[in-house]
């Protein structure tokens, strides 16, 4: 057998062997120690690279956490939430704080069917671009432009623009990363605690008479919501109510009282109050109920609640001295007091 036949085998084999051995030696000699926790933590993170933590993507955050540069508590990774925070804490051998799950809400409900336009915008479909040309096409200078800058920036596909041209956040998909809050040129998106479900869907600072002319769901600054919230969790600031979620207030009466329907309640059906046989007719519940005519009955007789009219705010629960009132129904029970999470 001519030796030439073996040349290819020998050459390719020896080149391969040379590189194989060379790489094996090099991988040992040139080894760089990489903290194995980085890979572990990275595996836990949502992987959306949303940047809510302030680091360029999840790998940057994982590295910072593993090196102890940032709080490992996980309140930094909003999309991950408490679950991931605890998992990371387990890896690092520390304890994590609980994180309040947040969600983004758009403070505007003025679609093309409700809010009047003064011009037609035909430029680039981008809110920032529209702002530059006469501050948008709506008469309302604080309304949602509906061009979807927030939709494009959302890493979780949780925002869409309705056919009326208003951005709406999907509460189930939203993780509260806050990217849309940053990108919105109108600054009408904010984060609220997920448990609350009620928010003001208007950002207009104009006076009432003016607002009524161009938006049927605009806040007229009537302050009825402020009066319906005795704890002071709503204050009027520059013709617009400001909701203080930290005070853990029940905003259902405020939403009910609003004549312009500016509040959005993400809960479609709330549980209704029901009075049982313990009732002695003290009328304490009638005094606190924000809706007139819901609770009826003679004094010293058992009272009845009209289920169709009850808004499910649950204020009467705490007012009843005999604890005769309970919430019935399919909707989620309302939160009335602080600290119960």
């Amino acid at each position, binding site marked *: 057998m001519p030796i030439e036949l073996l040349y290819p085998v020998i050459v390719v084999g020896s*080149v391969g062997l040379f590189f194989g051995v060379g790489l094996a030696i090099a*991988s040992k000699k040139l080894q760089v120690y990489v903290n194995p926790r980085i890979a572990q933590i990275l595996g836990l993170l949502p992987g959306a690279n949303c940047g809510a933590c302030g680091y360029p993507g999840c790998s940057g955050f994982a590295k910072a956490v593993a090196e102890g540069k940032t709080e490992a508590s996980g309140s930094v990774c909003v999309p991950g939430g408490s679950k991931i925070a605890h998992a990371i804490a387990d890896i690092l051998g520390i304890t994590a704080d609980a994180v309040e799950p947040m969600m983004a809400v758009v403070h505007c409900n003025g679609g093309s069917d409700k809010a009047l336009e003064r011009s037609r915008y035909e430029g680039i479909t*981008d809110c920032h671009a529209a702002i530059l040309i006469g501050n948008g096409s709506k008469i309302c200078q604080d309304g949602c432009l509906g061009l979807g800058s927030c939709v494009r920036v959302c890493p979780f596909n949780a925002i869409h623009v309705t056919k009326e041209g208003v951005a709406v956040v999907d509460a189930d998909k939203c993780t509260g990363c806050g990217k849309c809050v940053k990108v919105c040129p109108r600054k009408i998106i904010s984060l609220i605690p997920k448990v609350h479900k009620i928010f003001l869907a208007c950002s207009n600072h104009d006076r009432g008479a003016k607002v009524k002319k161009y938006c049927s769901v605009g806040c007229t600054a009537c302050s009825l919501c402020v009066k319906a919230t005795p704890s002071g969790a709503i204050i009027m600031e520059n013709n617009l109510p400001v909701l203080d979620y930290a005070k853990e207030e029940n905003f259902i009466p405020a939403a009910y009282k609003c004549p312009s329907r500016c509040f959005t309640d993400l809960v479609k059906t709330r549980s209704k109050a029901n009075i049982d046989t313990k009732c002695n007719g003290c009328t304490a519940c009638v005094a606190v109920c924000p809706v007139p005519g819901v609770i009826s009955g003679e004094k010293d007789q058992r009272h009845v609640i009209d289920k169709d009219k009850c808004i499910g705010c649950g204020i009467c629960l705490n007012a009843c001295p005999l604890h005769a009132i309970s919430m019935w129904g399919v909707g989620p029970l309302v939160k009335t007091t602080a600290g119960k999470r």
Partner: protein
Amino acid sequence: MMNPISLIEISIGAIFINNFVLSRFLGLCPFFGVSKKVSSAAGMGMAVIFVMTIASSFSWVIFNYILHPYHIEYLRTIVFILVIAGLVQLVEMALQKYSPTLYESLGIFLPLITTNCAVLGVAIINTDLNQTTGSPYTFIESLLNGIMSGVGFSLALLLMAGIREKTEFSPVPKALEGLPIAFITAGLMALAFLGFSGLNFFPAVGG
């Protein structure tokens, strides 16, 4: 063959006339994959220049001192792939150890292009018989061809990234959004680069 004119000719040829992406249609995968942002396109371009330079020099040595003497030139494809892949791995490790900053900026792109057809292409072309001179490139010419092919690739990539950043904000028809419009753009760019094919700076040298 070491006259400066031939070196300039090789450079112009590699960057414009025989641009890897737009004339030879090699390395189209990174051309579309990494051309969404100018910054990442620049990183990829640098990595390609780097790898092409290394690949063309080493493959030239392997070809001329191992494959050619044993008359097994037909094995060059498989040997080049082996050599380039192994070499890039080695360089990647060395970078990670000795120059973490360079590794951070090139790191993610390096493994992507180890077996890229453009990188293999430059090695093959270097060892092919040159059409203009009738003989294969010398070592210096191979090295220059490698660098300049990388520069040509980076140029095409950067141009493409610049255009794609603009088309992001253009009213592109719905059906053409994303890759389709990029393909059309690439086709038009290739047509434009076709104009360089008549370029002949030094007719006296031939070519």
